[in-house]
Each structure stands twice: as structure tokens, then as C-alpha cells.
């Protein structure tokens, strides 16, 4: 598929033809096919799943199940039953903190996370530790926006940009410092694949391998909310135990999240919500639960949303994730170069300089202009960016910055969007100077 004409697939551009949408990290726009799929369910077979012995319910059930298969293929899970549908990344991670955390983490144990996490992969673990007397440890980031795991400073791969699409930071580093954080007592390592502020792509496979070498029993939990929409993710190849992501950031509907986990681990975990659909048999004095994934899907799910997620994956595949990634690398590089050359000394970009190690996210501070003012003035010209701490307050505190400005890119963004952003920022200068 050609990215040139892609904007016509996104009806929002018909309603706002001058829209410069640079906030796909918060949520992506939706293609027509995804919207139509959701409407199709409501118009043609809006019955509950798993329950009805009648045709439209069977249709809904089969579409729902099909989505589980498609998601499983998309991330290379062992089988569809490893895919649990939730409401969001946030819910997937909270499910883990509850159903896994309460099972395996005891007083005196350790949970390790990082300072670059979104609150949804930070607060659940912090609170679990507070609750049960375990220790919550946090890996810091260095000045270049990489996880501080390496004694050999900035030993980056020297390969030319663009040869391999999905390279992550510190490939040939030795992750020496991981040994100072992860111990035999560490039950859980929870970290993000791609930072939603710095853009950093963490060397997930290497980190997981190194962590498991120190402690073979550690559970590695990956927040892939900013990875799945933008690059090929193979959960088995990563060598991790759980992966969480959201439909709405990958062209799909809001209200649907995914939790992938190794099947035997899902089996051992506590259920999450109790209720309909997750039970096998209920007696007055006891209940037998279903096997995963239904064990974790109590109640009527967001059927239309789940079904339409299938369409989003179909759309992404028809473009090709390598094309998506290359497009984002190109725009990100263009944005970094243009911003730095146009606003020399005025604008400070956070995170890795090398787009090989960076998703399509450019977060910056701009002179002493307050991010709110920047966003408001850009909005006058229909440029949508995000400002604030982006649900990553610990990171901002550690960088001693109150708030930042973030522009993020996806398949429908163009270099023209970047140029409009630059024009907008010049206007900010003119007004606030």
C-alpha cells in the first residue's frame, strides 16, 4: 500500500481538512474500515457472544474468536488462548499486578521497574509493594535518554541507519548494571518497550535475556503500548512473559486492550474479575473457573471494539510494519533536524538522537515558553500536540522539568505536518517573545 494517499482512508481529515494531528502517542486516528467494522456489528449481528444458540450470536462469537486468532498471529503468540481481551493497556497491567503480583510477590521480595514508565506500568507495582511489604526498585535513565544499565557509556551500534528497521538501544552493550538491580529476590521486571516521552526503544530482548540469566524465575512484563502500533513485535522472540497493549493506539477502537501471556502462567494466576463467562460451574460453596483466556474475561466484553481491532490489524498488515517503521524514522529524523536547525539553542529535544533507537516521538522544551501556551497557540492553527508530563511524572521529576511538549507521528503524517509545526512554533515565538 502506498502511504501517499493514505489520508483519504481516515475520515477525520474530511471533517477537518487542515488538521495537523501530532498526537498519535495519545491515541491514533481511525481508518474508515475500522469504523465500518464496528458499525457492521451493531447493524448486522449485535448479539452477545458465547451465549446465544442462534445465528447472529454465532456470527458475533465467530468474529470475536477470529480476532483472538488474528492478534495471536500478529504478535506470534503460541496460540490464540494466550490472548486476553481487556479494556486497555492500563487494565492489562493492573490485571497482572492483581492476578500475578498477589500470587508471586511476597514480603521481602523485589519488583523492578524504570523511571521512564507511563504511570500505568509504575503505580500498580509501586502500590503492590506498599501493600505487601516488597521492595520497589526503579532503573534510571542517563542523559541521552537510555536506561542506565550500561557501564560502557553510549556504546551504540555503528551500523548505518535504516538497514534494519527495528534496532534498539545499546545492542552490543553488556547491561552490566542490571546485576546491581536485579537479584534472586526480584520476582517481576516491568518495563516499557518504547518510552512515550523519550521515544527510546529499549533493547527488550537483551534486557529480558540478561534478567533471566541473573534470575531464571523472574517474570518479565512488557508495556508495548507504544511498540505494537509502530513496529513488528514477536513476543516469543523477545523472550518475555507478558505483553500489554491498547487497540486505540494502533488504529483500532478505544475500550479494547490486550494482554498476552504464556499459557501456563495465565493458568497459574488468580482470576481478575469474577462473574459471568469466566466460570465453569458455580455452587453455593465454591466455583470452578474457566481456563484462560475466558478466566480473565468476566462479563460482556466490548464486542464491537474487539471485532474492529481485527480490521485495524488487517489494515496495518496491508501496509506492512516495516513500511510503517521506516516512514516514522524518516519523519522523525526530518523533524529533529528541522527543529534543531530552526530553533538553535532555543529548543531542547529529550531522548536518543539516533532514530534507530527512537520511535516516532519528539518531546522537547522550547525556550522558557510554557507548554500550555505553546499548545494553545498551535491549536489556533489546528495543530494538535500534547503538553504536560504525559502520564510520566517520575521521569519529568528526575529530569527536573515540569512539563514538556510532545509531537508524535504515525502513518498519516507527512513532512508537511512537520513544517507546519515549525511554522506554528515560530508564531509562538512571535507572540510570546
Amino acid at each position: 500500500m502506498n502511504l501517499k494517499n493514505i489520508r483519504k482512508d481516515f475520515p477525520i481529515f474530511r471533517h477537518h481538512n487542515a488538521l495537523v494531528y501530532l498526537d498519535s502517542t495519545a491515541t491514533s486516528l481511525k481508518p474508515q474500515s475500522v469504523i465500518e467494522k464496528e458499525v457492521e456489528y451493531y447493524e448486522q449481528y449485535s448479539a452477545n457472544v458465547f451465549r446465544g444458540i442462534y445465528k447472529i450470536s454465532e456470527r458475533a462469537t465467530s468474529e470475536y474468536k477470529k480476532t483472538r486468532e488474528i492478534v495471536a498471529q500478529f504478535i506470534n503468540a503460541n496460540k490464540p488462548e494466550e490472548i486476553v481481551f481487556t479494556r486497555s493497556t492500563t487494565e492489562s497491567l493492573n490485571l497482572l499486578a492483581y492476578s500475578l503480583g498477589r500470587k508471586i510477590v511476597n514480603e521481602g521480595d523485589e519488583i523492578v521497574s524504570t523511571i521512564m514508565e507511563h504511570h500505568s506500568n509504575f503505580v500498580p507495582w509501586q502500590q503492590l509493594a506498599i501493600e505487601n511489604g516488597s521492595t520497589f526498585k526503579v532503573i534510571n535513565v542517563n542523559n541521552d535518554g537510555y536506561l542506565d544499565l550500561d557501564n560502557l557509556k553510549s556504546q551504540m551500534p555503528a551500523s548505518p541507519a535504516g538497514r534494519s528497521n527495528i534496532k534498539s538501544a545499546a545492542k552490543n552493550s553488556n547491561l552490566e548494571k542490571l546485576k546491581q538491580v536485579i537479584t534472586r529476590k526480584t520476582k517481576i521486571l516491568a518495563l516499557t518497550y518504547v518510552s512515550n516521552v523519550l521515544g527510546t526503544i529499549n533493547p527488550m530482548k537483551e534486557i529480558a535475556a540478561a534478567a533471566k540469566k541473573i534470575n531464571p524465575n523472574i517474570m518479565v512484563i512488557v508495556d508495548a503500548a507504544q511498540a505494537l502500533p509502530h513496529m513488528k513485535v514477536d513476543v516469543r522472540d523477545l523472550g518475555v512473559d507478558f505483553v500489554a497493549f491498547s487497540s486505540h493506539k494502533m488504529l483500532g477502537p478505544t475500550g479494547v486492550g490486550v494482554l498476552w501471556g504464556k499459557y501456563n502462567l495465565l493458568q497459574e494466576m488468580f482470576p481478575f474479575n469474577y462473574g459471568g463467562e469466566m466460570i465453569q460451574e458455580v455452587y453455593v460453596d465454591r466455583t470452578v473457573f474457566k481456563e484462560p483466556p475466558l478466566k480473565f474475561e468476566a462479563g460482556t466484553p466490548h464486542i464491537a471494539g474487539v471485532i474492529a481491532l481485527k480490521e485495524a490489524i488487517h489494515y496495518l498488515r496491508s501496509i506492512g510494519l516495516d513500511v510503517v517503521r521506516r516512514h516514522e524514522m524518516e519523519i522523525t529524523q526530518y523533524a529533529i533536524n528541522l527543529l534543531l536547525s530552526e530553533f538553535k539553542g532555543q529548543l531542547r529535544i529529550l531522548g536518543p538522537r539516533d532514530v534507530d533507537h527512537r520511535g516516532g516521538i519528539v518531546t522537547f522544551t522550547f525556550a522558557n515558553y510554557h507548554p500550555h501556551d505553546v499548545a494553545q497557540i498551535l491549536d489556533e492553527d489546528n495543530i494538535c500536540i500534547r503538553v504536560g508530563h504525559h502520564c510520566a511524572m517520575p521521569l519529568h521529576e528526575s529530569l527536573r522539568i515540569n512539563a514538556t511538549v510532545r509531537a508524535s507521528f504515525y502513518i498519516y503524517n507527512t513532512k508537511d505536518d512537520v513544517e507546519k509545526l515549525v511554522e506554528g512554533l515560530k508564531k509562538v515565538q512571535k507572540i510570546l517573545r
Partner: protein
Amino acid sequence: MSIYQEIILEHYKNPRNFGTLKSPSKKTSVSNPSCGDKIGMDVVFTGKKLMEIKFSGQGCAISRAAASLLTEYCKGKTNEELQKLDKEFMIKLLGIELGPNRIKCALLPLEALHKLL
């Protein structure tokens, strides 16, 4: 209409009563953690009258202009008069329309003032 009107920008760039007082009769600070804004406020009351007021801290153009305009207005007013100031008053004082997200910025200095009354 842009909210960055002449009067707002003028007060943003040249805020009145910016700084701290040497011997305030009362001082306070308020913050809006979601945008990292902080406003400190010092006042001197003589009897019931507010005689001196200064504000400090960091903020966006709206919160800074609001603080500047508000502190200018406050001088010489009584405690009772100041207690009556509300959201509508701040909107009128600024003379602009603010969306639900930005109104918080305009109200931050008022929150500080109310803590001092």
C-alpha cells in the same frame, strides 16, 4: 478569537507586583501539578485592608497575566470585598473566553488569594 490578547500579553511580559515582600503578614503557595505551575503570594494587611501584595513562581501566560491583573486589582480592597471574588470575576478581569482546561490556569492566583483571606 485568540486568547493571547494585547492586555494578556502585556501583563505576561511585564507582570505587576512580581516578587516577594520583605515582611508579609501572610504568605502562601498553590500549585497545579498537571502542568507544573506554582504561584507564591505574599500580602500585607493593615487592619482589614490589603495594602501590599506580590506574587512569584512559574506559570503559563494565562496564569501569570491573571496573577498580575488580580494583584493590581486587590490593593486597597478589604478582606470582605476580596472574599467575594469568583470565577466570573476572573473571566471578566481577563476579558477572554477560556476552555475547561485553561480556566484552571486563570483560577490559580485566585486560589492563592483566597487562602490568604
